């Protein structure tokens, strides 16, 4: 703060000398690392990435500007791009609705006054803390065609086994089943907390009015839980659009691209083929999809999320 005497600078100095000003200085000191991080590790890369998406660049040369060529190629000439969009969409639709409904039902079951709640909760939560890689390695073995436990179980129930991960039809469902299994416990915990936040008075009042269990579920539990459901859905969609590790460990995107997701394709283009410009364009397409879906969910929530009865 050098001695400058223009009127604007004078007002700033006056503010900084006041109590409010000293508070602001302390606050800026506390958030300084975060601001720096925001600039260096988020904002600059996000902008740089946008620039690279308009260039041809193999990491060794200097990026060469080519306007919208990457995007045009992606959207009109690259069949693989649309396959990865379709695969990722399949994965999101396969995991999010089923995972959310299952988690909600199990949370309701666990929220009844039952014994061993802590034991059940711990068991349901064990897969969540394990890495996707470890879980994928485990399920790679479970899904093994001839000696895997999944097919062994199917055979013992009288079904025929399936060549899970080497089948174009079954590879993605296999990854979806595993991912639901992996993430279930997380959403259960969120839903339980939401259920416990619903005041018991509502249920008691409804009982006095002669409502049965089903009516209470539809008219009290579902609406009052809707903010939590909204949160779970929004985060699940953001996360599941970025699916990568499962495909990387279990199938390498195969068989015949059946499990190649957007992020997997981005990884291949960027870090296997070193098409950095093209990969940046892919990243931006993913970014736009995620942001628009999130904004859509925020807009649409007004129609179904109740913050009170």
């Amino acid at each position, binding site marked *: 703060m050098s001695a400058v005497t223009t009127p604007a600078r004078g007002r700033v100095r006056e503010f900084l000398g006041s109590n409010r000003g*000293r*508070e*602001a200085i*302390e*606050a*800026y*000191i*506390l*958030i300084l*690392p*975060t601001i720096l*991080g*925001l600039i260096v*590790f988020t904002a600059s*890369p996000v902008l*740089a*990435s946008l620039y690279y998406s308009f260039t041809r660049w193999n*990491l060794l040369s200097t990026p060469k500007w080519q306007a919208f060529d990457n995007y045009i190629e992606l959207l009109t000439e690259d069949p693989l791009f649309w396959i990865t969009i379709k695969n990722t969409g399949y994965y999101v639709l396969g995991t999010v609705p089923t995972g959310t409904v299952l988690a909600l039902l*199990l949370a309701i079951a666990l929220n*009844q*006054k039952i*014994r061993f709640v802590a034991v*059940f*909760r711990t*068991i*349901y939560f*064990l*897969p969540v*803390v*394990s*890495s*996707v*890689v*470890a879980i994928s*390695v*485990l399920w*790679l*073995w479970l899904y093994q065609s001839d000696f895997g*436990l999944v097919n*062994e179980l199917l055979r013992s129930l009288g079904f025929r086994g399936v060549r899970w991960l080497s089948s174009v039809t079954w590879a993605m469902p296999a990854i979806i089943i595993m991912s639901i*299994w992996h993430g279930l416990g997380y959403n259960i*915990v*969120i839903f339980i*907390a*939401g259920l416990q936040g619903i005041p018991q008075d509502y249920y008691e009042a409804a009982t006095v009015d*002669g409502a049965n*269990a*089903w009516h209470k579920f539809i008219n009290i539990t579902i609406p009052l839980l809707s903010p*939590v459901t909204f949160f779970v859905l929004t*985060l699940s969609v*953001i996360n599941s*659009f*970025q699916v990568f590790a499962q495909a*990387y*460990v279990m199938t390498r995107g195969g068989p015949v691209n059946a499990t190649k997701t957007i*992020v997997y394709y981005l990884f291949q283009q960027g870090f296997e083929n070193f098409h950095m410009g093209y990969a940046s364009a892919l*990243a*931006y397409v993913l*970014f736009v999809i995620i*942001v628009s879906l999130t904004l859509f969910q925020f807009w649409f929530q007004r129609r179904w999320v109740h913050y009170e009865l």
Partner: protein
Amino acid sequence: MSAQDAPPIGEARTTAIPGASAAASEGLTSYRVLYITWRVLLYAVLTLVGATMLLPLLWMISTSLKEPGEVLLLPPKWISIPPQWGNYPRLFDVLPFDLFLINSIKIAVFATVGALLSCSMAAFAFARMRFPGKNVIFAIILATIMIPFHVTLIPLFKLYRDIGWLSTHLPLTVPFFFGTAFGIFLMRQFYLTIPQEMVEAARIDGCSFIQIYYRIFLPLSKPGLATLGIFTFLGSWNNLMGPLIFLTKVETMTITLGLTLLTNQSGGRWELIQAGAVISILPIVVMFFIGQEHFIQGIARTGIKG
């Protein structure tokens, strides 16, 4: 786990069991039958789901203790006698798993310390202080949660390459010292539960805000710090994409990345691969059992207030 576990009807009436209170006025016997059926069904479903969750993990351990010949037995054998504990040391001959473990611990500890420091500081400013631009900056931080990591990946890769950070652990630790959106949000949620009167009182006693932060709020938010610490440690330990891109030398790799390497290189030696998987999740599972409450509280808190 049977109907005997069901509490007496009087207790049930005070809970949210569907139909419990409504049915109470009808004959007790028919209600009791209905109630017991409901409870049995409940426990049956919960147990079935529990088995679905647990059995694959037990199978991982079971396979890791088998001889190569036993792995491909049909019908499958759950317990190998004697257990082949030797599979675990053998793992360390195939790949440097000791280094992988040390690297993972080192990276996760530094990332955790960094996140705890930077997030607890920034969160305090956002929760309890007034300054120009506060709401805008906080909104921007929250909005960054939507940005996929992959959008920043390529420029960060270039940056780290240019400053010589590739194949070091710096890209996986240093950014955590500069705040994470999730961590700031989580800590702010915890701080908001601490009464404002404590700030006022400390201000009257002449404390600066920074003093209030480390003398009052840090000690009072230990559960919050524990939650954030566990989350950060777990996220760092389980991360695949970061190590896969930034760590190219085998001796710098993490356990999670090492496990993918083992899976590729071991040529279908399932007992070794599963032993690797067990080793990679064991530290995390132990940590989960120790800090379970913090973990669950943390998820519940961020989930509900979100």
